């Protein structure tokens, strides 16, 4: 039983260009697919290679010691020779998993609220002639700008 490394309200996030990075690594091991090939497989209901890698990467990044089983998983899923599977696992660790970040929903909410905070400050400035303390804003219980957290 794999144990998640994520706390409540946390998730693993990869950067925007992650699919390109994965694609470059896959190409080295003869696993790359064109868009048309992917779409064809999808229309037939088959799993695509990139989807398999994405799932492996996501699992490895979000479970405790997930990267340790990477070699075996890759070998089994892609039927690669040991040497290639080892090398592929290593590259995933070094080039892909290293990009993974644990982010909390709080952080996401903060990103959203930064912009709103500015407008709130502008408003307060006009109304009271002074800026509110940011700390007091963060501690506000009725922070309507934060995204609700489930």
């Amino acid at each position, binding site marked *: 039983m794999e144990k998640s490394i994520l706390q409540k309200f946390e*998730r693993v996030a990869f950067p925007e260009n*992650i*699919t390109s990075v994965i694609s470059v690594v896959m190409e080295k091991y003869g696993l790359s697919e064109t*868009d048309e090939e992917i779409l064809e497989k999808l229309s037939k209901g088959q799993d695509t290679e990139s*989807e398999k890698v*994405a799932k492996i990467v996501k699992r490895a990044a979000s479970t405790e010691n997930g990267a340790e089983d990477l070699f075996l998983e890759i070998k089994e899923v892609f039927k690669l020779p040991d040497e290639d599977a080892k090398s592929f696992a290593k590259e995933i660790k070094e080039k892909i998993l290293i990009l993974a970040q644990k982010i909390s929903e709080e952080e996401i909410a903060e990103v959203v609220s930064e912009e709103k905070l500015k407008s709130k400050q502008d408003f307060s400035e006009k109304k009271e002639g002074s800026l509110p303390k940011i700390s007091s804003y963060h501690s506000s219980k009725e922070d309507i700008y934060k995204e609700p957290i489930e």
Partner: protein
Amino acid sequence: MKVRNKKIIIAFSLLVFLGILVPFKSALAWDIFSFIRDDIVGNFTKGIVWALSGIFAYAASFLLETGQSFLAWVISGDFMGSVSMTNNPIVNYGWAITRDMANIFLLLGLVVIGLGIILGLEEYQAKKTIPRMLAMALLINFTPVICGFFIDFSNTLMNYLLGGGTLPQNLYTVVVEGINQVNQTDPYSSLLIMLVWFIFGFAGFLAYVLYGLLFIFRYIFLWILIIFSPIAFVSNIFPSDKIKNFFPDFFQWQEWWKQFLSWCAIGIYAAFFILLASKLMVGVASNTIGISEPAGKLATWGKIFSYVFPLILLFIGIDSVKKIVEQKVPGAGKVMGLAQTAGIAAVTAGAGLAVGVAAGVSAGATVGASRGAQEGVGTLGKIKGTLKGAAMGGATAGGREEGAKWYRKTAEKVPYLGPKPGTYEAELRGKTAEEEKRLDKLDKKDLNYLAQDKTVLTREGNIRRAAALNILNKRGELDETNTKYVKEAQSFGFNAEEAAKKRPSIMAEKIGKNTEDVVKGMDPEEFRKSIHEKELENIDVFASMDLRKLQEIGAKGSSKKIDAVKTLNNKTVLDNKQNEFEAKLAAAKTSRDPQEIAKAQARLNNFKTLRVDLTGNPNFQ
């Protein structure tokens, strides 16, 4: 006996009354009820409305005539009678006193210079001061002549501009004749036009009275300056830093000249603006100046609006002169400022009311006609729809607010006199924001009730509805049911554009766009922050995204948003949408329209790219 007589009198009166009115009706179509309703009550009401129109027209004409007559009187040679500016009892009396005082100061100056020479004080510069003192001793006796020269020069220019010191004799008559060209057979339209004419008349009255007051001020201040001219001249012999402690600014050589020349010149500036405005008014009235009149439903208002131009010109003139006056006489500047504000407010209110109602009527008529036609009730239905729409457009708060908004936005474009751009929005935003604060504690049920309130008639009610919608939008609680009155609420501060960014599938159509346009109009970051998670479960919203938006959601979006996108990673849903795009591309190819083909191809390619990324992106696993 008396009772019987009364009955006879009443019966006789009734017969006489009917006898007068009945012959005007066709015997076949005669119906006592419709006769009472349409002819007696209708004509009585129309009579009152015509009478009111007449009162407004008379009052407007009276005000305009009074204002113009006042100014004509003030600038005419008769105003001062046979008394000249530099030779009248007040000036003569005052000037004699100040001249004697100036002579005393000359003696004082001599003493000061003498002491300076004895004590060897260089700063009194006796060699330079004595010739100057002698010159001033001579000149102070001729100050009325010197002042007279400058005043006469400015008056000559003024008189040249004002055509011999009078307004055109027929100015008022010509303007009223121009207004009479706005021929109205409908009493209600006539009442409205005359009401607006009254407001313009009042603004014109204010403008002319202000100019009249300015010229009166000019006479008075020039008198005062002439009276104190000997003191100003004698002040020139003293070193200025010492003088400042003794003489007020007004008496000092340089300041005196500055004020004297300003008051002389003010008359020229004012005369110039009066000349332009008068020419424009006469030109507009006699149709020799071609300010084009609007077509369609605004046509009858064209003549009235044309008079806004000369009025604006007059107020610009007042504003320019006011700035000069303010520097010289703060009190006078403030009085002029208040009167000017009242005048501008009157012009604004008049034009706002007129355009508000006209725009409302026009918009209502269009909608009414369209609905009439849609309901398939033929020409009669269309006419009825048009009339009802016009009435409702002018009568509803939304129609009037749209008109007022149009006018205010137009006024904001007027340089110099118009309010700052964005004032209208800022005011409305402020009011709606205040209402939002008040309603913020309400729950969704109550807010829904306010948002769906169809009984709203007043501006306040509309602002409340807009505020309720804004709160619902902030909470992400807008849905199909509570967005029925979005269009109306937009006029009162509901930010539908922002709401559409959050809920494009619900709101895009209501702001005249489609989901694709709204989504494409946002950059990836704005899209991620604005979009509601429910929208990301919508395949149309998904298909409207581009790759960067999808990747932005994957990398930085909340779990809710990512989970929403993940629900779409469903073969059937994606296949169906892809098939739809392929069918559209095939249809476009059949039409052989290269633009349509390119668009359809781009949509299909974009969708395929999104699908590929969704499958291979670990953020969506």
